Structures are given as C-alpha cells and as structure tokens.
C-alpha cells in the first residue's frame, strides 16, 4: 500500500505546489510505513522530486496528453493506482487538481476529501482536519473506504526536503478515447495568479472606480503580488470575475493579504481567512475588517498607496 502524489507541472516544469504535495505525501507515507510514488505528465524536471523524498517517480510522456483534461488524466492515474497498489492519493488544491480529484473519485469509487489543512490526526480510523463553511470553520472528519483522495489546501503544509532515491519509470497504460477536446487556452502569462501568489493586493469600492486601479497594479508589481478585488467591484464590472475573492469567489491562502478600501463583509473575510498575515488600509476606523487584521492603517488610500509604493521602491 503506497501513497501516490499527483505532481502538477506547467510548460514541462514542476509547479511549487508539487513540492508541497510531495512533502505532505512523504510525511504521510512515513506515518503509514509505506512508499511515496510521484506521478507527473510530460514533465522535464521530474527528478527534482527526489529532493522531497520520492521512492519512485512515474513520468507519463504522451503527446495525446499534452492538454490537461480531467477524464484522460484520471484514467491514466487510475491505472497507476491499481498497478502500484495505492491507498492514498495526494493532490494540491489548484483548479486542475480539484477538477481531476472529483472525477477520479467517480471512476475509482474512492473517498475524496478536499481543503485538508494538516496531516491525518489518526490513521485508523483515518481522520483529517479540513476547512469548511468557506474557512469560517474547520472540522475533523473521518474518511472511510479503501482508496482515499486528499486535496490539501495551498500553503497549509510546509515544504520539507528529504532525500529520496526514486528511479524514474515510464509506465504502460491504455489511453481512453474522449470527445472532450481543448480548443484554446487564453492566459495572461506575465501576471502572478491569486492561487500561486505569496502576496495578494486586493481593493474594494473604496477605490471609487476602475480608473484608479493602476495604483493597485503598481503596488502589486513592486511586491511581486497578484491583484484581487471584492465582490461589489467584480459585480460592477470594474475588475474581472477571476479577481473576485470571497465566499462565492476565490479563496486566498497567501502569506500576506493587503486589503485596500474593503470594509470586510463576512463573506469576504471567509474567503481570505486562510491568509497568514492581513494588512488593512481603510479610511473608516469602524470598518469590520480591522477586527480581522494583523496590521492596519486608518487613512485615505489615495495618499497612502502612492507613498507606500515609493517607500517600497526606495527599499529595493
């Protein structure tokens, strides 16, 4: 019985999340007294997983699997699961991983649990801690079933180096046919995404209009941060939906979350609760966000942000 980690890559290179999932997978395999097997698709730097303790590395090379789709990838993974006698599969919480995890659970009749924030508290019964109610709460949850699929929250498990001597193997598998074809992908390649960012700079209605967002973008650029916004801002069309963070938008689990001109409605706070350090800049001292913040500045964003940008630039 081994632990399988699905190691995500982008443009042939492993993503940072695959070191988190490998570290988690290694710790879990040690607890279980089993082996850690990592699997990746069309990945050129897969040997890096040895640094995180892989006992075996499976590389799936196929031009038919160039585009990620939940169905085709799941069917390959289900064959790896069977061949390697896997008991637990570890995934990140990226959009693709969650897409894949639920489908994989369907075809393998396994037990899937997402938003897991720590190693299991107990192995028998298998009990994990996960966030729920959009980070307004956590639960300890018992998972039954022979095969378990665990998606871990981003930034919830520290990357640990651990010497591994995994041999890279290619495997034989059957590809499934699918009418599902990816026709096009549009990506803003230069921008840091909310899911991958260590720092997120977010702004709300306090900015008064989309024409003032250049300040937010400049601040984000200086910090190497992703930009985000509150629900009203995306509803009014000032910013794209993909930037909306909160209960009905995206969750944020960055190291630093800077909220500018956002009052801090309960739905917004739920979405950003997993961020480690929160800074709030707001002219209203009564804004509920100050109660959820680590650091706060009460004042006018239109004065504070340009000065903050200048000071951060001077520091570099």
């Amino acid at each position, binding site marked *: 019985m081994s632990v399988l980690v699905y190691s995500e890559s982008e443009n042939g290179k492993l993503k940072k999340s695959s070191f988190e999932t490998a570290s988690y997978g290694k710790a879990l395999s040690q607890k279980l007294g089993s082996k850690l097997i990592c699997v990746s698709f069309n990945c050129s730097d897969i040997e890096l997983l040895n640094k995180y303790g892989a006992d075996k590395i499976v590389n799936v090379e196929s031009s038919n699997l160039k585009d990620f789709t*939940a*169905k085709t990838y*799941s069917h390959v993974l289900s064959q790896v699961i069977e061949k390697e006698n896997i008991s637990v599969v570890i995934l990140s919480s990226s*959009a693709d991983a*969650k*897409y894949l995890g*639920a*489908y994989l*659970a*369907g*075809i393998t009749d396994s*037990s*899937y649990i*997402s938003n897991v924030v720590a190693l299991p508290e107990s192995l028998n019964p298998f*009990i994990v801690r996960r966030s729920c*109610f959009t*980070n*307004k*709460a*956590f*639960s300890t*949850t*018992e998972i*039954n*079933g022979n095969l378990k699929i665990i998606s871990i929250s981003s930034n919830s498990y520290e990357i640990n180096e651990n010497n591994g001597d995994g041999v890279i193997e290619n495997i034989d598998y059957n590809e499934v046919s*699918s009418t*599902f*074809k990816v*026709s096009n992908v*549009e*990506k*803003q*390649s230069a*921008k840091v995404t909310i899911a991958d960012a260590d*720092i997120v700079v977010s702004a709300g209605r306090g900015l008064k209009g989309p024409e003032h967002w250049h300040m937010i973008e400049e601040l984000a650029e200086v910090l190497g941060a992703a930009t985000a916004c509150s629900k009203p801002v*995306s*509803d009014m069309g000032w910013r794209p*939906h993909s930037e909306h963070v909160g*209960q*009905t*938008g995206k969750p944020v689990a960055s190291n*630093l979350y800077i909220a500018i001109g956002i009052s801090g*409605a*309960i*739905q917004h706070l739920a979405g950003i*609760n997993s961020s*480690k*350090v929160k800074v709030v800049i707001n002219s209203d001292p009564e804004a509920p966000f*100050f*109660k959820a*913040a*680590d*650091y*706060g*500045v009460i*004042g006018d964003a239109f004065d*504070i942000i340009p000065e*903050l940008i200048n*000071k*951060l630039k001077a520091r570099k």
Partner: protein
Amino acid sequence: MNILVCISNVPDTTSKINFTDSDSKFDKNGVQFIINPNDEFGLTKAVWMKDSNKASVTVLTVGDSSADTILRKCLAIGADKAIRIDCEAKDAYSVAKEIVAHCESIKYDIIICGRESIDYNGGLVPGLIAGCLDYNFITNCVSLEIESGKAKCAREISGGTEFSECDLPLVIGAQKGLVEESDLIIPNMRGIMMARQKPLDVIKAQNINSRAIDKKFFKPEEKGEVKLVKPDELDKLIDLLENEAKVI
C-alpha cells in the same frame, strides 16, 4: 433537450456559523437557507436554455422536506419540474451517488451542479457524477453553448480561460461568469403562482452509506488586536512586515 440542475440547500452567506451537540453538528437554529449561489448561476443558465435550446429543466435536491421551500423557489425562477430524493444529505459522496442512481433511470443531456457548495466546499458532486456515469465533465464553467448536439464551453483556470468542445451528455460545475450576478432571476408573482401548479416529486432514496463523517467542528482562533500604524509612519509598516511578520 433535458437538463437536470442539482440544487444544494445552504446557509445564507451572511450566516454566523455555530455548532451544537458538543460541536459535532452545524447549528441550523436561526439560519436562513438559500439556493447554493453556484447552483443558482447554473439554474439561471438552464432557464435561458429553455428558450434558446427548447430545453426542459428539472431541478433536483437530496434532502428532507425542509428543502421543499427552495425547490419551489427554483420552480418560480423557471424550472419545469422538481424532484426531491428523500433522505438526510449526509455527505457529498452519498448525495452524488443518489443523483447518479436517478440519472441511470432517467437520461439527461446536461447535468448542472454548482462547482462547490458554500457550506462544505467539497467540490465533489459534479465530478463524481460525471466519473460514475462516464459523461463529459467541465467544472469552474464560465460559458456554455450547445449547437447541433455539441457543447462549446469555457473553464476558468489559474490565470486564464480554457475553451473546449465535447459531445453530450455533459456534467457542468457552474460558477459566476456562466451568468452574471445581475442576470439572476428574482421570481415574480406570476412565477410564484405558476410554481404551485408545477410537479414536485418526492422519490425514495437508495440510502447509500456516507464516506466522510464530521466528528467535531472548530472555529478559527480569534485574532489578536490589530496593530495600527499611522498613515505618516509607513516606514514602520514596512519594517513590521519585513522583520516581525517576515512576509516581504
């Protein structure tokens, strides 16, 4: 074309979350329940497809009779028919399996779910249904058009959008963007009156065992007091972030 929209009954987004029975159960006391927002985006899209694709729209929920209120609301919004699979919704696995059993007896061209519920956020139901039925599947779906039996859809991915095409049947995980917030249909008096005449069938559950059992709930630790920095002392803020919090 037959469309099934799966609806989850969830606490209103403004709800304060509390627990009862030694923190082992969600406290429903005083909580208003709503249609899961991601499901509602999907329902609105389905109602539009009644006109554009001559679709018939069935809404379905897995739950006890307390869920009938939101099913009536879905009918008032424009669904043609409602089905409730009569059992307590225990976990995502058992709920999805109940839906799978229903979809094995009645075929739908498109099954729409929210990409996740806003209570347990599992995101399991649409994928599990698609996997079990071997249907095509797209989640985080922000666009869907059906032309001569084929679907053109778009999915929000990290930092962009992915466009794809596939045959039906198809399972969708809906989210904002599939329709806009301002497109959501508020039932009018005529819709509410008509909803009373529409069928709401209660069907027997398979009583599938759950796979995930919540043992105990916790609330996040209370934050300490916020450290305020004066607007003219931003150097101090930078210093705190760099040396105390160590995040920049």
